[in-house]
């Protein structure tokens, strides 16, 4: 299926500047995730985190950041796990158009 933008074989977009909300929908679909308002909240938060700290958060930091920005009930790993099953920081960052992680934290 030809997508909106070019991705590598792990599904990360090749040119980060091409990220748009439409692209995010496509990336999420590839992960088997249908984006809801709750997903979007986290996606925007991830982009905000990246703009603020020039890095993608590890799980620990993402949980704390969500708690600070969205309230304690959302600053829990179980909440993020439900939205982005498996590895929320990694999958969320991919959909949010953050750089492919260099390491395997």
């Amino acid at each position: 299926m030809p997508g909106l933008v070019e991705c590598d074989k792990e599904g990360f977009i090749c040119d980060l500047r091409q990220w748009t909300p439409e692209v995010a929908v496509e990336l999420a679909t590839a992960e088997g995730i249908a984006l809801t308002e709750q997903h979007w909240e986290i996606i925007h938060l991830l982009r905000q985190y990246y703009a603020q700290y020039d890095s993608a958060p590890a799980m620990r930091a993402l949980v704390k950041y969500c708690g600070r920005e969205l309230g304690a009930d959302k600053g829990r790993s179980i909440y993020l796990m439900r939205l982005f099953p498996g590895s929320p920081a990694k999958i969320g960052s991919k959909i949010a158009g953050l750089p492919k992680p260099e390491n395997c934290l």
Partner: protein
Amino acid sequence: MTPQSVLFVLRHSPYGSDMAKSAIDAALAFAAFEQPLNLLFLGDGVLQLMPGQDGKVIGRKTIYKQLLSLPMYDVERIYVDRLAAQRHRIDLAAFPASVERVSEGEAHALMCDHRHVLGF
């Protein structure tokens, strides 16, 4: 300070080498794995704390911004060489973690209080 904790001693300027980047990568990894750690900015290492950096213009990540994320990893306090911060006129007012300015003697005591010391 627990007997398990590690002290990172950051001694290099942010963009003159990749030492600063290596150090923050390592420090965030320790924090992500919930290992207790502290950071001591010593000598030219205090230059990493100079506000207003923009690594983007030289195609690098901005070290200062990455350091700002330390509280997100529950690193709530950093230690800074008082003399070097004065000499380089580093404005530490805006840094989001609590900043403890230390003398040489206090920096030495800090090294003694940690299980391992990693010099970057």
